[in-house]
């Protein structure tokens, strides 16, 4: 009971963080058709900028300022990097963001050094929120979930209940028509790209001190969010939400399970010795394989449901 509850809570909070990242990615993808390879790099930039800001004026201003800064940076990248490439098709755009992800890692190392930085959790949130039996749930995890849910609500409100959201949706599905009605679609693209990057930056601000703020943090989370986007269905926000939670829960649960196929077969009365064929494979525990589970899920989804969980296009 205790184990299930806490793994679920941890899984959900990790999944929500993944969603904060993948939502921006999905938004950008469904609008511009370009998968922003540097998305995780903006997440990293968010964490580092928040670290710098919070060491001067504290965590709370950083929570607002860092995503704004990252969003502006993203808008600049779209305006001067991606927009001129749009006419060449999607592969040059993807390659540009790929090169950018390369560059951002180098620049981060240049400015903040190669080692991890001491980006601490704010004092108010440092400590347990509640203790059940013998395990305590950190307050910061709850705060992460709160921010993610607030962000989810805010996106939903903006996209469905405001004029801006309406224009964005129109530009998403019918860019030519929206342009004919007098909306500056390229500028909308720019701000959507910036907005998506700001969401990644926000995820970085609250994820950076929950985990580690280091130059490798973009690479560790980068490929997982692509898995989320493909598994959820390219361009589907709801799919990204479901896939983030699924992968978050799956990975945190798997890390805690120290069972292997050999255990299972042992229970069934089959003796496993080092002489058994495929002994190495049988002996791998679920915990050991937790790193490959998202990718395995990706492969399985592609074989059995190629359009993703909630995707509409093949």
């Amino acid at each position, binding site marked *: 009971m205790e184990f299930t509850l806490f793994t679920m809570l941890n899984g959900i909070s990790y999944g929500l963080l993944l969603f904060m990242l993948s939502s921006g990615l999905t938004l950008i993808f469904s609008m511009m058709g370009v998968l922003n390879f540097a998305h995780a790099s903006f997440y990293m930039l968010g964490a580092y900028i928040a670290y710098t800001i919070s060491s001067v004026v504290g965590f709370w201003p950083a929570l607002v300022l860092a995503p704004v800064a990252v969003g502006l940076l993203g808008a600049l990248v779209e305006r001067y990097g991606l927009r001129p490439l749009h006419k060449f098709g999607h592969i040059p755009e993807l390659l540009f963001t790929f090169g950018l992800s390369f560059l951002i890692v180098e620049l981060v190392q*240049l400015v903040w050094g190669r080692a991890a930085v001491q980006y601490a959790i704010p004092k108010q949130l440092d400590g347990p929120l509640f203790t059940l039996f013998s395990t305590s749930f950190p307050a910061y995890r709850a705060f992460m979930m709160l921010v993610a849910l607030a962000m989810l609500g805010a996106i939903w409100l903006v996209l469905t209940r405001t004029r801006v959201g309406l224009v964005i949706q129109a530009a998403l599905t019918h860019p030519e028509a929206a342009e004919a009605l007098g909306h500056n679609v390229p500028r909308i693209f720019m701000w959507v790209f910036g907005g998506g990057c700001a969401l990644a930056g926000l995820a970085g601000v609250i994820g950076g001190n929950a985990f580690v703020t280091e130059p490798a943090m973009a690479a560790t989370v980068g490929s997982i969010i692509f898995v989320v986007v493909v598994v959820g269905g390219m361009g589907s926000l709801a799919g990204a939400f479901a896939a983030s939670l699924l992968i978050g829960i799956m990975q945190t649960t798997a890390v805690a399970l120290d069972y292997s196929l050999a255990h299972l077969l042992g229970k069934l009365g089959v003796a496993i010795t080092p002489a058994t064929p495929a002994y190495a494979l049988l002996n791998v525990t679920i915990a050991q394989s937790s790193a490959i589970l998202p990718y395995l899920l990706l492969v399985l989804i592609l074989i059995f449901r190629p359009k993703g969980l909630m995707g509409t296009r093949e």
Partner: protein
Amino acid sequence: MKELRYTPLNLGRWLLWGGYALILLAAPLVFSKGGGLTLLSQMGTVMIFGLSYNMLLGQGGMLSFGHAVYSGLGAFFAIHAMNMAGAGQLPIPTSLIPLVGGVAGLGFGLLFGYVTTRKAGTTFAMITLGLVELVFASSLMFPGFFGGEGGVTTNRVIGGAVLGITYGPQIQVYYLIAFWLFVCTAAVYAYTQTPLGRIINAVRDNPERVEFIGYDTQWVRYLVVILSSFFAGIAGGLSAINFEIVSAENVSAIRSGSILLFTFIGGIGFFFGPLLGAVVGILFSVLLSDYTPAWQLYLGLFFVLLVRYAPGGMGSLIMLLLRAARFGHLGRVGKPLGWVCLAVLPGLFGFVAGVEMLYHLTLEAANGSVKQLFGMAVDTRSALPWTLAGGLLLASIVAWRKAQPVFADAWGASCAEIAVQTRSAR
């Protein structure tokens, strides 16, 4: 009746391939000093890898982020084959070890290609990224085969000398690589002339129409991935012989990303692009990394600039210049181009100096503030070098703004004239 055929001697082709073979033969004689030989050997393997990668990206329009899976797994199989041959369990000479890698690569191409090629375009790219992460993570799970963190090592000298060749000295390994490189280049080129090599170009450009004329695009892509992974496996096998070690890094996303970088830098639209890209890439990653810790920044910047301003890579720049030369415009274009290069040069110096000083300040601050830069001792904490670097950069920007429009005018006029000439010739 006997069929009458007329096939004239294609002198250009003989000269080109003969020259290529000659360059491969003569290269170690020219670059024999220091690490020249190891550099050339690495270039050779990366060239094969790049050729195989360009079968996907350039010729098939498939952007893969996980091509190292095939070369890396090929390398693992090759190194295990070498170890078994060394133990006398497998009668196979070192010269044929790359074939083991190739067959292993082909096998994994059969297996993984089936999953990855179900999609094209951006989704294909994402799946390959997922796949490479999957293989990389699994490689750490099975230390028995993949050797864990340390990797698998071997000794490439197997048995006695055959015709005096033991593959102990690096020069013999170089010639083995050069031989396989020549064979692979010829094979990949021949493949581009086959119906499969042609139809994959069509699949790249207009998959819908290819479906309409009765081809299964997914099947075509699958076949190409299988073939390409065969050559990737050969490259992997050769690198196993060359380094005598294979580790998990060989199947990583980093390795896959770097071959993408190199191939694109060379130019994905040209057959020789990957060859050029491998030379430049190895120069960056092996030679330049000896001199500066900032080489990845330079490589990344170079790549981004190319993507942004010359999506055809260095190959396209060379071909454009050659075309101008063929029409006799080199004199007209050459001078303004020279001025542009001259304008960029001081800025490049200033930029490099600035980056190097910044790296020194952030990463090597413990070793004092004095840095050796372009043969001078520079104090990174004093203002003078920074102003100098900034001044050079500024001067370069001013000169660029003067020289660039002149060049753009000359180039535009030349291109327009060539376009008129080619049209009237048609």
